[in-house]
Structure formats: C-alpha cells, structure tokens
C-alpha cells in the first residue's frame, strides 16, 4: 500500500483514539464521527481542551509558513490574512448552505472551501507581489493582509465589526491531531520532492536556480499557494472550533506571532516550526499560573523575556536547521 496513505490512516486512528479518550470517554456516535461533543465528560477540562486545539492550529500555521519563509526564503508578513480568508469563507459557506448537514460533510466541505479560497487568494497576491523580494515583499504582504481584514470588517454578511457568531462547531481534538500530523508530513514530503529542492535552490541562490532551468517565479508562487492553502485550512479549523470570529484575531500581530514561531524554532526547520508553534501557544497560558504567585500581571513581561532569552542563547532558533528524526529527509 502507498506509504503516504498508510501514514495518513495511522494519524487518523491516533486522532480517533485521542478524541475518544480526551473528550467523550464513552462509546458514542460523536467520538466515532470525529465530531465535537456537546458536553464534556472527558478527561480534561474545556480550558485545556481548547488550548490543545489551539496548539494544533498554531502548529499548522507555523509549518505552513515554513514553506514560504523557511524553504523558499521569502519574507512575508501577511499569513494571518490567509488564515482569515479560510476562516471566514468556511464559516460563511457552512452556516449559510450546510447548517444542518452531517458534521463529517460539514468538516470536509468547510476545510476544502476554506483552504481553496485561501489558496486562490494566495495565487493572486503571490503572482502580483512576488517580483519583489526581501523587506519590500514583507511590506506588500503585510498591506494585503490588512486589506483582507478591512474588507471582511466591512462585509455585513459575515457580521462586520460585530463579528460572526453561531458558527457550527465540529472541530474536535481528534480532527486537529489528524490534520496537524497529516499537514506536517505532507509539507515534509513537499520539501523532499523535486519541488522542495527547487524551493531550497531558489532560497540559496535565485540566479543559479534560474540558470539550472528552474523558473523562480513559478516556484515562489507555488510555495505561496500551498502555504496559503494550509493556512486557510488552519483558519477553517479555528472558525469551527471557536464558533465565533472577529477580525481582531487576524491583525498583523497574528502574522508576527506566526513568524516568531518559525524564528524561535529555527528558520528552515520543520521540527523547529512545530516546536515554535507549541511554545508560543503553551507559554502564555502556562504563565497564567505564575500570576497566582506574583499577584500582579507579569505574564507578558515574562513571555517577552523568555523570547528574548531564547534569541540570545540560541540565535539560530531552538532547532537551528536540524530536524527531528521522523521529519528528517529520507
């Protein structure tokens, strides 16, 4: 059997089992259908549950940005924009056209629509701005993501400034675990394919890549489209796990957070991107506990200090360019 499909199946089972243990803890239809239970009677509290879900979403975002920033060497600052597109299109389509469909159908349509529309916008934005490079590309993508956010803010059909409410919630921990593992492995596969080699070549030396028969613009657009597809999927997951969307989530602060995940983990390392995503999700929440002792809100101070410390002690990121074994090439 094809190894990739085999792996995906294993991830599916892992997700199913985790979902079963963490959220349902009883053989009911929800656990098997991969859907979010109405009521928690699982092992962990809803608070930890939602942190775990967010952890998965952030890892997907971080690894997807790794395709652009890490492998192709482009500096983009607009990843939150693609996430927003994925989140809002999926939320809109599902609550407008499929509000009563079975959750599995909603899940598939939501993720696919969110990802595809994000990929299309990634193509448009990529194609029009990828002639730029370096900081200029960063500024343009930052601009585009703000345009996307303001546009959404002014569309009444998705709630405008009030935010979008009553979005069907069908994303659960099992789906997230499956998607996180699957997307990470797919991105690894892309990296180890001829397309990944071409991306790395463009990053290392664009002119040499050009003279080796690789069209740099095409490779960059490809990386952009793939990355925004996965970001869109992450956005859709976010929409359908929170149940509420506000444009405030998708400001440039979110984009910078995703970049920070990559930088802290180590630019160009997929394991690093995962690790960075995990740290930047868990750290601010873990620091809430510290507040119990200190009494005053030192959370953001400690958070920033930790990040500064990591950058001083490990300027190349936690992983550098190394990879964990299951993500190393071949």
């Amino acid at each position: 059997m094809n190894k990739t499909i085999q792996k995906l199946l294993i991830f599916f089972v892992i997700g199913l089992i985790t979902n079963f243990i963490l959220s349902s803890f009883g053989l009911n239809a929800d656990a098997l259908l991969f859907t979010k239970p109405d009521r928690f009677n699982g092992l962990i509290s809803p608070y930890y549950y939602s942190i775990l879900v967010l952890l998965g979403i952030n890892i997907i975002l971080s690894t997807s940005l790794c395709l652009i920033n890490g492998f192709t060497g482009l500096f983009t600052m607009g990843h939150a924009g693609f996430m927003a597109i994925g989140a809002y299109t999926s939320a809109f389509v599902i609550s407008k056209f499929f509000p009563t469909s079975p959750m599995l159908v909603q899940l598939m349509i939501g993720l696919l629509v969110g990802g595809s529309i994000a990929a299309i916008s990634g193509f448009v934005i990529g194609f029009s701005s990828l002639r730029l490079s370096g900081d200029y590309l960063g500024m343009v993508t930052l601009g585009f993501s703000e345009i996307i956010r303001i546009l959404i803010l002014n569309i009444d059909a998705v709630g405008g400034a009030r935010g979008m409410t009553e979005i069907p919630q069908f994303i659960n921990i099992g789906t997230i675990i499956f998607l996180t593992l699957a997307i990470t492995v797919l991105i690894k596969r892309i990296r180890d394919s001829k397309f990944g080699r071409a991306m790395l070549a463009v990053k290392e030396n664009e002119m040499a890549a050009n003279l080796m028969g690789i069209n740099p613009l095409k490779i960059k657009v490809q990386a952009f489209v793939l990355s925004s597809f996965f970001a869109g999927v992450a956005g859709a997951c976010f929409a359908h796990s929170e149940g509420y969307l506000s444009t405030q989530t998708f400001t440039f602060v979110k984009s910078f957070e995703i970049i920070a995940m990559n930088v802290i983990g180590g630019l160009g390392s997929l394991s690093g991107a995962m690790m960075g995503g995990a740290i930047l999700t868990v750290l601010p929440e873990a620091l809430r506990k510290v507040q119990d002792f200190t009494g005053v809100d030192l959370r953001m101070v400690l958070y920033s200090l930790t990040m500064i410390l990591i950058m001083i002690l490990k300027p190349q990121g936690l992983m550098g360019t190394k990879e964990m074994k299951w993500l190393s090439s071949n």
Partner: protein
Amino acid sequence: MAILQLNDMSLFFGGIKANQNVSFTLQEGKLYGLIGPNGAGKSTIFNVITGIYKPTKGEVYLHGEKTLEFSPYQLAQKGIGRTFQNIRLFKELTVEQNVMTSFFSQSKTTFVQNLFRTKAFIEEEEKNRAKAHELLKFMGLLENAQDLAGSLPYGKQRKLEIARAMGLSPKLLLLDEPAAGLNPTETLELTNLIKELKEKHKLTVLLIEHDMRLVMQICEYIYVLDHGELISEGEPNFVQNDPKVVEAYLGVDE
C-alpha cells in the same frame, strides 16, 4: 553546424559600453576560449548568452533560433549550462541535491505524484540519484555526495559547479574561470576533466580563463576581447603571437 551565433551584439549600461559589436559563431563540438584583460566584458557575454542581460543591440541565435525572448531558465532547458566566476552553489544543500536540482525541468512527475510518493516518483528519484552519482563519480566527488556543498574545499566546489551544469545535459557549456583559485595540480586535473567531458558528451564548450597555459592547451579556437570589443580571434598559436593581443595584455612599447 553553428550552435551559437552572436550578431553585432552590443550591451550598454547607461554610458558604459560593456560589449560593442561582438560577433562570433560557435561550431558544434569544439572547445572555444574567450580571453581578455580584466573588465574586458567576458562575463557580460556569458550573461547575454544565458539570458540574464538583454543586449542593447544585435541578436543572439541558439541553433538558429533567436534567444532574446527567452528567460534564463528556458535557455537552460534548451541546453545551455554554465558555471560562475564567483561560485554560486546551493550551499546549504548536499552535493547530491545540488546536482539533482538541475534535473528539475527534465523530470516528468507531477506534484500529486511527488506528494503521495507514487511508484513513478520513487522510480524517477532513483534514476535521478543514479544519474547524479554518475556525474559526481566522473568529477571525483562521489565520496562527498552527502556533504553540504558549502563545506567542500574550493577546488571541489568548482568541480561541483561543473557537475551541476552537466546535470542539465547541456549542448553548450559555458565555463567562467573554472581554474580560478586552483593550484597547478588541480588545474591540470581540471583540464583533463573538461577535455574528457567534451568528448564524452559531444559538448560545445566556451571557456573564460586567465590561466593561459590551460587555455592554450585545450582550446581549439580563441576569441580575444578588450574594452568590450573583439580584437582578435584564431587558433591558439595565432592569437599568442598577434601584436594586438600582446598590446591589450602588456601595453605598447614606447
């Protein structure tokens, strides 16, 4: 048969005339040299041939086809391989991967096949790896296949550049100072390698080099460039004794 033809090619950067009315024809299967003092416009000619610069005036023909409308990557796919004066390897990639990047345009598998690692993908990858290893073996780099290209010693980096260019299965190979920075033993080794490569793959080679011994030894025909213009051309013996060439290199006797 003519493989490459430059027709009155001129390239100006504002007021600077990098190349002026350069015309030459390269016949298939021969080894050409392009020499001249520093700043004579040799590398610019390479950049025009590979499509990085568009000439201000004149035409370039590859196999009788105008090349001006093609981008560098398209010309590379049409069979122009080149190396660089200042080495431009993919430093963070392994030696093997460096060579395999040049197979990109020749490999047929689609994105989905790559993503799901189908049989076609695996077979192609095996085939490409074998091909890369063959090239590396020829250049004497096989033992370094898994090393990072940036960690190789200078001489080997130069060879890897040639191996990578050969990965395109080029018909025309442009070598920009392949022996720069090499010691005499390495230069000799390289000279033989270039000769062998040319015979084995029936290449046409155009070579920029300052090492006159290398040039006179292997080139069948030499073009001499000074201040952007061709000042002399001919067989090595002729060029060596041409007063114009001596003047360009050494100046005039007062």
